[in-house]
C-alpha cells in the first residue's frame, strides 16, 4: 500500500434515518431561523447581472450590435440566456479579453474587436458595455472609443454609446437602466429643437422578457391613434419570423426615431425601478411631460394607463378598448371564484412584483410572501403601501435581498397555494408541492409564454385563465372519485 492510500479516509455514510432527519429539519421553523440568519451565503438568487440587462436594451435598437468589452465567457452566457428564454437568436460580439488584457488593459482587444465586428456584421450602432473584468482593472472605455475613432477603426457617424455595467453592482435591471440612458443620451445629443414637437409618445417598457407585452402597448397606441416610439423595442428582435431567411437584426427602434424622441410630446416609463436614471435624464433633458407609471397589470392599472394616454394626447379611449375592458372584467368576475383567497408567493424584479401583486389584490387573491433578491428599502415601502391599500394585502411578508432558498423556508413553514416567478423557482415549487406560474425572466422550461401578453386587459384574462385553470386541473387530478364532477 502506498503512502497516499495509507492516509486515505473511509467513505462517509449517511444512514437513511439521518437523511430523513435532515430532509425534515430543512422544513422546520428552526431551520428557517438559521436560514434567515445567514449573512454571506446566497442560495438561488432571483436576479442576473448588469451586462445582461444592458444587452437587452441593445437588442431593442435598429441594427444595433451589442458589443461587450470584457471576457468571452460572459457574452456566451448572456446570449445563451436570451436564446433559451425567447428561443430566438441573440447576436452579440465581444472583444474577448484574456490574461494579457488583465495585465495590459483591454485597449488592444477593443481596437481589434470593433474593427472586426463592424466589418463582419455591418451594424448601424454599437452598444458597448462592460463585464466585471475591465471594471476591476479600471479600463477607460471613454478613452478607448476616442482612440479607436482617431485611428478610423470606427467609421464617422457610427454611434457608439457605452455603459459601465459591472456584475458586482446592482442587477440586470440596473444594467438595463444604464445602457438605455446612455443610448438615449448619445443619440439625442444636440437634437433638441426649441418649440419643435413630434407629437409622439415615447414609451419605455423597461426590462420585460415578454415580447407580447410590448406588442400590446403598441397596439393600444395604435388603437388610440397615438404615434409612439418604443424605447427600446425588443418585440421583433426576440419574436422574429421564420420564413427561410435569417436576419441578423430583425426589428428594434429606429435610430432616427430615437434621436427625435427628445422632441416628443411625452415620455412614459412603465417600470420605475429599471428606468430610474433614464427617467431622471429624460425629465431633465427631454421636451414634454415625463412620468413613470406602474406596469399595467390587471384592470385598474390598465385603466390608469389608458386614461393617462387619453389625457396627454387628448384622444378618447376608443370603443374597441372599452369593449376589451368589458370582456376582461367579465372574464375576471366569471373566474374570480377559482382564485379568491388563494395564497401566493411572488418572486421577481421590483416592477414586476408591483404589477403581479396589484393583479392579485384586484382579483381577491392573497399575496403571502413577496421575495425580491435585489431591492431597496424604498421598494419595500412602496409595495407595503400597495398591500395596505387592500384587505387582501394583510399579513403579507416582504423579503428584500432574500433568495429562493429563503422562499423555500417560508413555503415550508407558512404554506401557499402557488408561486409566481421565473423558472428558477421550480425547485421551491416542487418541494412545496404547489404549482409555479412562470412570469418574468428567464423562463427556460416552457414554450411561448413570452408570446402571450400578461399586461393590459388581455393580459389580465390570460393570467387569470392560466392560474384558475391550473387550480381546476389540480382539483380534477387529485380529488377522490365521488368528488370528480363534470362541472367546475
Amino acid at each position, binding site marked *: 500500500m502506498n503512502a497516499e492510500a495509507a492516509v486515505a479516509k473511509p467513505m462517509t455514510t449517511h444512514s437513511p434515518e439521518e437523511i430523513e432527519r435532515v430532509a425534515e429539519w430543512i422544513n422546520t421553523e428552526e431551520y428557517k431561523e438559521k436560514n434567515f440568519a445567514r449573512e454571506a451565503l446566497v*442560495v438561488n438568487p432571483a436576479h442576473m447581472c448588469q451586462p445582461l440587462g444592458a444587452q437587452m436594451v441593445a437588442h431593442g435598437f435598429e441594427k444595433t450590435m451589442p458589443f461587450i468589452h470584457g471576457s468571452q465567457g460572459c457574452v456566451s452566457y448572456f446570449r445563451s440566456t436570451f436564446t433559451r428564454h425567447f428561443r430566438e437568436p441573440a447576436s452579440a460580439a465581444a472583444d474577448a479579453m484574456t490574461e494579457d488584457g488583465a495585465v495590459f488593459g483591454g485597449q488592444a482587444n477593443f481596437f481589434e474587436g470593433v474593427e472586426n465586428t463592424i466589418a463582419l456584421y455591418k451594424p448601424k450602432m454599437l452598444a458597448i458595455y462592460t463585464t466585471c473584468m475591465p471594471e476591476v482593472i479600471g479600463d477607460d472605455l471613454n478613452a478607448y472609443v476616442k482612440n479607436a475613432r482617431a485611428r478610423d477603426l470606427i467609421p464617422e457617424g457610427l454611434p457608439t454609446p457605452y455603459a459601465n455595467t459591472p456584475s458586482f453592482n446592482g442587477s440586470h435591471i440596473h444594467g438595463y437602466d444604464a445602457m438605455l440612458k446612455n443610448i438615449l443620451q448619445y443619440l439625442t445629443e444636440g437634437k433638441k429643437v426649441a418649440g419643435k414637437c413630434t407629437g409622439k409618445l415615447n414609451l419605455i417598457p423597461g426590462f420585460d422578457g415578454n415580447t407580447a407585452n410590448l406588442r400590446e402597448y403598441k397596439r393600444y397606441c395604435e388603437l388610440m391613434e397615438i404615434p409612439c416610439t418604443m424605447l427600446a423595442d425588443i418585440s421583433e428582435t426576440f419574436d422574429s419570423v421564420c420564413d427561410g431567411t435569417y436576419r441578423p437584426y430583425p426589428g428594434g427602434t429606429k435610430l432616427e426615431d430615437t434621436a427625435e424622441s427628445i422632441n416628443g410630446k411625452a415620455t412614459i416609463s412603465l417600470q420605475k425601478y429599471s428606468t430610474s436614471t433614464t427617467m431622471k435624464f429624460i425629465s431633465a433633458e427631454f421636451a414634454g411631460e415625463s412620468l413613470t407609471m406602474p406596469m399595467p397589470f390587471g384592470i385598474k392599472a390598465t385603466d390608469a394607463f389608458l386614461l393617462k394616454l387619453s389625457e396627454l394626447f387628448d384622444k378618447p379611449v376608443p370603443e374597441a378598448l372599452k369593449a376589451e375592458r368589458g370582456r376582461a372584467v367579465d372574464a375576471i368576475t366569471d373566474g374570480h371564484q377559482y382564485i379568491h383567497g388563494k395564497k401566493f408567493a411572488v418572486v421577481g424584479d421590483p416592477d414586476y412584483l408591483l404589477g403581479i401583486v396589484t393583479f392579485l389584490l384586484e382579483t381577491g387573491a392573497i399575496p403571502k410572501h413577496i421575495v425580491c433578491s435585489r431591492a431597496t428599502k424604498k421598494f419595500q415601502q412602496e409595495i407595503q403601501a400597495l398591500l395596505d391599500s387592500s384587505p387582501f394585502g394583510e399579513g403579507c411578508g416582504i423579503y428584500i435581498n432574500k433568495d429562493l*432558498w429563503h422562499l423555500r423556508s417560508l413555503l415550508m413553514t407558512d404554506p401557499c397555494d402557488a408561486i409566481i416567478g421565473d423558472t428558477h423557482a421550480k425547485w421551491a415549487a416542487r418541494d412545496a408541492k404547489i404549482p409555479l406560474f412562470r412570469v418574468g425572466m428567464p423562463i*427556460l422550461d416552457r414554450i411561448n409564454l413570452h408570446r402571450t401578453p400578461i399586461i393590459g386587459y388581455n393580459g389580465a384574462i390570460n393570467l387569470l385563465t392560466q392560474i384558475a385553470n391550473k387550480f381546476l386541473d389540480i382539483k380534477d387530478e387529485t380529488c377522490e372519485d365521488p368528488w370528480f364532477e363534470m362541472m367546475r
Partner: protein
Amino acid sequence: MSERKPIKGMSKARTEKLIKKTLAEMPEKAAKKRAPHFVANEPSASTCAVRSNKKVVPGVMSQRGCAYAGAKGVVWGPIRDVVHVSHGPVGCGMYSWGTRRNLMQGKPGVTSFPYNFTSDFQERDIVYGGDKKLMKLLREANELFPLNKGLSVLSECPVGLIGDDINAVAREMEKEFGKLVIPCNCEGFRGVSQSLGHHISNDSIRDFVIGKHKYDEEPGPYDVALIGDYNIGGDVWAAKPILEEIGLNIKSVWTGDGEIEKIAATNSVKLNLIHCYRSMNYMCKVMEEKWNIPWLEYNFFGPTKIESSLRAIGELFDDKIKKNVEKVIRKYRKEMDEVIARYKPRLEGKTAMLFVGGLRPRHTIGAYEDLGIQITGAGYEFAHQDDYDRTGPEMARDTIIYDDVSEFELEKFVDEFKPDLIGSGIKEKYVFQKAGIPFRQMHSWDYSGPYHGYEGFKIFARDIDMAINSPTWDLVKSPF
C-alpha cells in the same frame, strides 16, 4: 480503419475555394488569424492541419465560453454531493445554474445540491477582498446543508484580479470541517476557452481530491471508473448498465451524477474508461503515472461504435469479460437493427454539419453513419490538436474541418454545403432554424436524451428523424 467513401460533390478545390471566399470578407488581420483554423480534410494525414486552442479573434462572435464555464459547468458542477460555490458576482453562477442538463440522483438540498450557491460579490467585496466573507459563507453552507460531502470554491474573474487567496481559505476550512473543501482557480479570463477550466479542475482534483478516500469494499479485478461522462440527459445512466452487463464494476463516475468520495478513491481501480477525452485525458495520464492505471477511450454513440468500443474494452480483460461482450453485442444487435431498419430508409443520403464542444463532433459521427447520414463538416469550440488528429480519420476526404468557427463563418459554410441537419449549440440553433434548416442541439441533446448506449441510440435515431423529417419545415415558405 479504412477511409470513408468520398461524399458526392465534395472536392478539395470546392472546400478550399469556400474557405478562401469566406476569409476574403474579413478584415485582413482577422482573415490572417482565422485562415489556419479551416482545412479540407485529409483523412490519411498523420496530423490534422487545422490550428486550434488559440485566442478568440476579438469581435467575431465566437461561441466559446470561459474557464469558469469549463470548471463549474462541465467538471465540478455535476458532482452531486458537493456544495459548489460560485465565488464572485452573481452572474456566472446564475447562468450556469441547471443549464447543462447534468442529471443527478439524491434528495435536492439534503444529499444533492443542484443549486446556485454564490457569494454574490458587491463593490465592497471587490475593494476589501472576499476572503473573510468566503470563510463565513462556507461555514453557513456547511451548517445549512450538513450532509454535503464537501464544498468547492470556483472563482470568477474578479476574485483572481483582486488577488484573493481562496486556496488558503479552503485549507483552513477543510481542517475545520473535517471534509473536502476544494479551491478551483478557474477565473473566466484565464486561457482561451472552457478547455483551461477543465484543466484547472483536473489540477484541483489531482491536488486536493484524488487519493484522499478509499472504497469500503475490497478491490476487485473488474473495478473501473468512467472518466469524462457528465450525465447529460442521463447519458451515464444509459452507459453504465452496458458496462455492468459485461461484468465490470463501475466504482466511480467523473463527474456525471458523481460522488466526491468515490472520485477521491479512484486511484485503486484497474482501468479508466474515458469518454470526454478533451476534458479529462490529463487526469487519466496523472493516474497512469502515479498509480499505473491504464486508460482507454471509448465511444458509446451508435451500435457500430458501441460494439467496437466494447470489444476494445474486452481485450483488456479476461475471457469472461470477452465472452460477455459478445453476448451483450448479440443481445442488442437485433434491437439496434430494428431501429436502423425503421429510420435509415428515411435518412439515407442526408448530410449533416456538426459544431460542438469536447468530443461530440467526432464521437457522434458513427451514430449518424449508422443511420445513413454523412458528415460534410465538423469542428469544435475548444478542441486541441489531438482532438483534430482523432477527427480527420472519422470524416470523408475533402469535408471541411473548422475550429472555433464564428457565426459568420459557419453561416457561409452552411450556405455552400446546404446540409440537411446541423448539430450544434443553443446560440446557433435558431439562426439556422429561421433559415429553415433542421437543427439539433448537440451539447444538450435538445432537452432530450440520453444519446449514449443502446437506449440512447433509439432516442437519437428518433430525434434526428424528427428533426430532418418534421412536416413543420414544409410550412416555412409562405405561399404568398
